[in-house]
């Protein structure tokens, strides 16, 4: 396939008079990207719901999700809005509609997936670069599964959950988690992530954006609707992952308390529960503030530009 430089006559809506895409997306564009990513990821999850899972012993050989779907959208449109929309699509389409809603674990899953797609999408600076696409696809699964594996391991380490593996051999659990992690990376990340994305991202680049009234991304351009890689953003990401840990703990606590009640309550007391809840509230609030902060900076200079362009257009 030969590389075709993207050229287009005339200005598209959502671009300024030089044809540059403003750093901030217009509200309808945000809504479009959000809804598109939600529907596409929801659809792919419905398909996976139909395919039966294959498990061999403790290992799960199934496809967790079609990584290439959110990754393509994040690479071409806007990582932030796709990361917000895609996990919500999974919850609305498969979990609520199919009656498969699992309470607190959904929040944990949403936060992990949000972080994974957002970070992986931000890694892709040039949608025509195959190496970046491949890294992005693996990164989605890597971050998502690493966070959930870390949560699992910490649960056992803290003691809210019993290790169900060979007794006296804590390493065996580490090995099992590691192998499961590797399987996920290979199946979900490479077979259903890297390979389709390598074809789909370049194929859709320059074709899907005009349908949404946007100009295709050009390498080196700042990512639309995006926080610059700032300290604020890293802080918010850390807080979100911490919050997802606490959600997981709350759930594990709930499951285990029935079994270990007497000695367990003595050891930790109910304050553990309340501290977890308080921590979640504080962490979520702080991360929202940090996200606002991180987003506020790159947006500011774009506003006068767009206003000027609109004025010119009208006049």
């Amino acid at each position, binding site marked *: 396939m030969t590389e075709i430089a993207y050229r287009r006559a005339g200005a598209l809506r959502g671009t300024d008079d030089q044809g540059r895409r403003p750093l901030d997306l217009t509200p309808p564009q945000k809504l479009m990207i959000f*809804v598109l990513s939600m529907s596409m990821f929801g659809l792919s999850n419905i398909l996976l719901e139909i395919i039966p899972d294959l498990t061999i012993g403790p290992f799960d050989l199934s496809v967790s999700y079609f990584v290439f779907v959110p990754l393509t959208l994040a690479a071409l449109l806007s990582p932030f809005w796709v990361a917000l929309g895609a996990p919500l699509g999974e919850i609305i389409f498969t979990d609520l509609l199919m*009656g498969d809603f699992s309470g607190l674990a959904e929040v944990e899953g949403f936060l992990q997936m949000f972080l994974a797609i957002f970070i992986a999408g931000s890694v892709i600076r040039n949608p025509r670069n195959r190496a970046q696409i491949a890294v992005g696809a693996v990164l989605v699964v890597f971050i998502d599964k690493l966070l959930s594996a870390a949560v699992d391991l910490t649960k056992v380490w803290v003691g809210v959950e019993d290790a169900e593996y060979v007794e006296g051999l804590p390493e065996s659990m580490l090995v099992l988690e590691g192998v499961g992690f590797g399987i996920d990376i290979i199946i979900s990340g490479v077979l259903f992530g890297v390979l389709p994305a390598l074809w789909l991202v370049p194929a859709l680049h320059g074709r899907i954006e005009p349908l949404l*009234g946007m100009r295709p991304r050009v390498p080196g351009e700042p990512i639309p609707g995006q926080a610059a890689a700032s300290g604020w953003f890293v802080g918010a990401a850390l807080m979100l992952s911490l919050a997802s840990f606490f959600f997981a703990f709350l759930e594990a606590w709930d499951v285990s308390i029935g079994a270990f009640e007497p000695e367990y309550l003595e050891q930790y007391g109910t304050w553990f529960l309340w501290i977890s809840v308080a921590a979640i509230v504080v962490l979520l609030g702080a991360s929202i503030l940090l996200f606002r902060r991180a987003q506020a900076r790159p947006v500011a200079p774009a506003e006068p530009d767009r206003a000027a362009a609109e004025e010119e257009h009208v006049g």
Partner: protein
Amino acid sequence: MARRQRDVVSVEWVKLELIRAAYATRGGLFSRMDPRMVLLWYVIMAAAPWLTHNITVLAGLFALGAVSVALARVGPLLLLLFIVGLGLETIYILAVALLFGGNAETAVALLELTLKLGAVSTASMAAFVSLDPEKLSDALLSLRAPALLAFAVSYGYRMLPILVEEFNTVFDNYRIRSAPPARHGFLGIRTLVHWVKMAVLSFYPIFLNTAQSVRTTVESLETRGFTYATVDQRGRDIRLGYLKVTALDICVVATTAVLVLLAYLAGDQWPLMRRDFMSG
């Protein structure tokens, strides 16, 4: 009475079932209620199982969930998926537990978790099958949820059947136009790869079609002042004016609350905890 079809399980039937579920066409108790009260009812039913470990209470809540599924007239497809999912999960964990030297305690722990998840799932099926997209998003709006979320929910429910239909059409196109592999290969691996490839290829036209339809929808909404209509109080009043809490709503929520309380009282009277089964 629904039309009888000879081949009950077909792709057409699955699609029809999804449409029926998304649009709440079967009627039922909850579809006649105010959507906000249905959400309140769901919150009661979904939160109650998480607050206890008493198996008596959980069994009561599960029974309540089953009754509400019947009252909501949940379709056979969702019920089947639910039962198969719950059953297979239970059998699998039980088999693993027995294989790795589990005992009665494991089984009871499993029973507790299954009851808990089952109670929550039945409630969510009953509630969300009964809410059509319009009502659900209006309820969310009137509860001051972000307009983005309310719209996304309504759009998602509305488009899901259409998307599935569209995907099916595109996928069939690829099937008709491409030759199947000459040999099935080891464990049918060639056929599997062929199908996966077609599924992935189908996403290309689906992406473009959906992008176009999303834009059309959003722009037509914006011409009608979607953003301001949901922000401005006058717009909200017009849109949400039809939501009214009636005697039926209060009856259903009150009955549910009483039944949940009864389940807890019964649990207090005849407690059955997981530790009762613990050996030693």
